[in-house]
C-alpha cells in the first residue's frame, strides 16, 4: 500500500531486527518531507557506571565486559588501558602483541558475524541467514568457518569466546606457549583465502548511492592500523579542513554526552558536531597503514584508495569512502587484515617471561580507548587511595554514532520518498538497512528497531 506524498504521517517500527539489542525508530513526514528521524534506544538501563563505584581497581575489565556479549574483548581491553593509565603501568612487547592478537580474534569473529549473518541478507533480499543459506550455502558456510577461526583465537587466548576469563590488568593470567599457538596458524592460512573470497563476494553486491554527512573519528597510530591503542583523530566532513588529533586525556573536553528524551542511550557529540566512528572512520584515518595485501583487496573491491600517508600523494590515491552501504566492504577488508596480523603476531611470538606486569593501585584518573569492531570505545575511571573506583565513565561507539545514524535515516528515507517508495513496508526496509549499515551495538549504548512514522 503506497502512501500519498502529501499529508502528514508518522511511521513507527517497533523493533529493529538483526542488530544487537533493542531499538525503535520514529519518523515524521510532513507533506512528503522527512522532518524528524529518531532512533530510540529502549534497552533498559543497566547502571554499570553507577555500580562500578566502590569496586576494586582490578574489577572493571571483567565487570564491563558484561556490557556487551558481542565485543567483550573491546570492553576488557579499554578498561585495562584506562586502569593501567591511572596506575602508571605500561604493557608492551609480547604482552601487547598478545592483546592485539586477542583483539584480531574479536575483529574477525564480530565483523564476520555482521557481514554474513546480519548484513548480507539485506543485499541478497533475505530475511535472515537461514533463508539466505538456501541459495548461498557456500558463502554462509565460509562465513561460519571464518567466524569460527576468530572465535578460536579468542577461545585459545581468553578461555572462551564470550566474556573471556584470561585477560587481567597488566596482561594475562596465563600466556600460551608457541606450540599452543601453532594450530591457530594453520587455521589462519585457510582463513586468509576465506577472507579474500569474502571481499570478492561482497564486492559484487549492489550498493545504492549514499554519503554519510559527519566527521569521521578513529584512533590513529603512526606505524600501524590502530586497534588496541592510538591517538583520537578527526577527519572533518569538509574536505578543505585538515585532520586533527588530541591527547586521549582531553577526550572529555571534546566528546560531550547529552541525554535525549527518546532514548536510554546518551547522545555524544564531537566538538558540538555529528561524528561517526567504526570501519568507515578507521579506513579513512588509517587506511594507508593497512598491509599491502589488504590494500590490494580494497582496490580490487573498488573501495577507492584511502587517504595517503602525508607526503606520499600519488596517482590513484583518491578520497575516503563515506557510503555507509559500503561499510560491509571495509569490514571485509579489515577481516583480511586482522587474519594477516594474527598470522604475523603468531609467527613472531616468543612467550614472555611473566604473563603480566604488576599494576599497583594508586589514587588518580585514567583514560583508555580502543577500536571495538563497531568503533572507538572510551573508558575513564577515577580511583581513591585504596584503589576503589570513585567515578566511572564509558562512551561506547553506538552512543557516538547515533547522531550520524539518525541523519542517514533522514536522508535515506527522503531519497526513498522522492523515488516514490512511500509504503510502510518499503520505508521499514530502508530504515532497517540504514541502521544495519552501521552495525550498531545497542546492548552497548544502553540498546532494536521499532519504527514510528508520523505523516502530517
Amino acid at each position, binding site marked *: 500500500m503506497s502512501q500519498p506524498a502529501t499529508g502528514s504521517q508518522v511511521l513507527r517500527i517497533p*523493533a*529493529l*531486527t*538483526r*542488530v*544487537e*539489542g*533493542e531499538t525503535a525508530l520514529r519518523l515524521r513526514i510532513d507533506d512528503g518531507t522527512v522532518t524528524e528521524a529518531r532512533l530510540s534506544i529502549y534497552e*533498559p*538501563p*543497566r*547502571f*554499570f*557506571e*553507577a*555500580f562500578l*563505584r*566502590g569496586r*576494586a581497581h582490578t*574489577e572493571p575489565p*571483567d*565487570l564491563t565486559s*558484561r*556490557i*556487551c*556479549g*558481542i565485543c*567483550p574483548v573491546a570492553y576488557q581491553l579499554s578498561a585495562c588501558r584506562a586502569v593501567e593509565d591511572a596506575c602508571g603501568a605500561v604493557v608492551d612487547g609480547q604482552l601487547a602483541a598478545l592483546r592485539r592478537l586477542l583483539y584480531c580474534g574479536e575483529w574477525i569473529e564480530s565483523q564476520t*558475524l555482521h557481514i554474513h*549473518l546480519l548484513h548480507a*541478507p539485506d543485499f541478497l533480499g*533475505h*530475511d*535472515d*541467514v*537461514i*533463508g539466505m*543459506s*538456501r541459495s548461498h550455502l557456500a558463502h*554462509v558456510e565460509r562465513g561460519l*568457518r571464518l*567466524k*569460527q577461526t576468530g*572465535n578460536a583465537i579468542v577461545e585459545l587466548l581468553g*578461555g*572462551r*569466546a*564470550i*566474556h573471556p*576469563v584470561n585477560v587481567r590488568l597488566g596482561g*594475562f*593470567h*596465563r600466556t600460551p606457549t608457541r606450540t599452543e599457538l601453532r594450530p591457530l596458524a594453520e587455521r589462519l592460512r585457510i582463513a586468509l583465502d576465506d577472507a579474500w573470497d569474502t571481499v570478492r563476494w561482497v564486492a559484487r553486491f549492489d550498493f545504492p548511492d549514499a554519503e554519510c554527512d559527519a566527521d569521521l573519528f578513529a584512533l590513529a597510530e603512526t606505524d600501524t592500523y590502530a586497534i588496541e591503542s592510538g591517538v583520537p583523530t578527526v577527519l572533518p566532513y569538509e574536505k578543505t579542513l585538515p585532520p586533527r588529533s588530541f591527547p586521549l586525556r582531553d577526550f572529555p573536553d571534546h566528546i560531550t554526552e*547529552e*541525554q535525549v*528524551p527518546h532514548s*536510554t542511550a546518551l547522545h555524544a557529540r564531537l566538538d558540538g558536531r555529528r561524528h561517526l566512528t567504526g570501519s568507515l572512520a578507521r579506513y579513512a584515518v588509517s587506511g594507508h597503514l593497512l598491509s599491502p595485501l589488504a590494500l590490494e583487496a580494497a582496490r580490487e573491491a573498488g573501495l577507492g584508495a584511502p587517504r595517503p600517508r602525508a607526503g606520499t600523494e600519488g596517482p590513484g590515491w583518491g578520497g575516503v569512502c563515506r557510503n555507509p552501504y559500503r561499510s560491509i566492504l571495509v569490514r571485509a577488508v579489515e577481516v583480511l587484515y586482522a587474519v594477516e596480523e594474527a598470522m604475523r603476531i603468531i609467527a613472531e611470538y616468543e612467550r614472555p617471561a611473566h*604473563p603480566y606486569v604488576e599494576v599497583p593501585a594508586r589514587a588518580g584518573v585514567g583514560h583508555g580507548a580502543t577500536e571495538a569492531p563497531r568503533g572507538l570505545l572510551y573508558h575513564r575511571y577515577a580511583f581513591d587511595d585504596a584503589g576503589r573506583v570513585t567515578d566511572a565513565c564509558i562512551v561506547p561507539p553506538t552512543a557516538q554514532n547515533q547522531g550520524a545514524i539518525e541523519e542517514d535515516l533522514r536522508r535515506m528515507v527522503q531519497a526513498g520518498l522522492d523515488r516514490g517508495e512511500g509504503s510502510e513496508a518499503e520505508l521499514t526496509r530502508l530504515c532497517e538497512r540504514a541502521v544495519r549499515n552501521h552495525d550498531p551495538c545497542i*546492548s552497548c549504548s544502553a540498546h*532494536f528497531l521499532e519504527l514510528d512514522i508520523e505523516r502530517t
Partner: protein
Amino acid sequence: MSTDTAPPARPRLGVFKFASCDGCQLTLLDCEDELLGIATELEIAYFLEGSSAPAPGPYDLSLVEGSVSTPEHVDRIRRIRADSRHLVTIGACATAGGVQALRNHADVAEYLAAVYARPDYIETLATSTPISAHVPVDFELRGCPIDRGQLVEVITAFLAGRKPGIPDHAVCFACKRRGNVCVTVAHGTPCLGPVTHAGCGALCPTYGRGCYGCFGPAGTTNLPALVPLMHRDGMSDEDIGRFLRTFNVTAFTAVEEQEPGTIQKEGPR
C-alpha cells in the same frame, strides 16, 4: 526465521531478550557447527537478533535471556509464558538477575541520577529479578555466559523429550577431572570453585586464576567452610562480599542467608 521451504511439523523456537548483554543469545549463533542443523530440526520462529521475520506464537520452546528490570518487562514475560509450551531461561541474567541486580542493594534513584541528567525520562524498576520470580520456568541454564555445549544439550534434550543432562555439582569436580592443579592449594589464590555451579569445564583454574562464580551457586554449597580459606588468602570480609556479589548477586546472597558465613550484610554501594 524464514519458513518458505520448511516442512510444517517442526517444533517452533522463540528467543527472547530482557535486560542483558546479548551474550547468551549470541552463544546460539556461535554454534557454527550446529546452527544449520538446529535450524532444520527446529523452526526458528522468533529471534530478533538473527532474523527480520519474527513470527507470532505459540512457541514450543522459548529461550529467554536477560532479567526483568522495567515495568514493561513484567507484562512481556507473562505474555511470552502464555505463548510458550516449554520455557528455558539462559544465563545469569535470566536465572539470577545478572550483574544489573547489583542495583538491588543500592538506591536506584541515586544510580539514575549518577548516569542520567534527566532521570525522570527513564523507566526502570528498582530491582533486576530473575524470570522465575515472575512466571514458572521449566529449566534454568546457568552461566555468564552460558556454555555452548550445555545449550546444545538443552535443545537436544527438548527435541528428544527428556530432561537435560546438566549436573548440579561444583566447578571443583570439573577442575579435578581436567587434572588442574588447585589454585587455592598450590598458590593461595582465592577461588569460588567449591561453591560455584559446574558448566564451564573449570575454565579459570585452567588459566591459573580463581573462579569468580559466573555460573552462580552449585546445588550444594558450604560457604562457612570456604570463607576462612579466603580470609587466609588475604581477603577481607568486604572483599569476599564483593567477590560473591558480582554476576549472580541474588543467587549467592540467597545462599549466604541460608548458610551465614562472615561476609558483610551490605554489599558494595
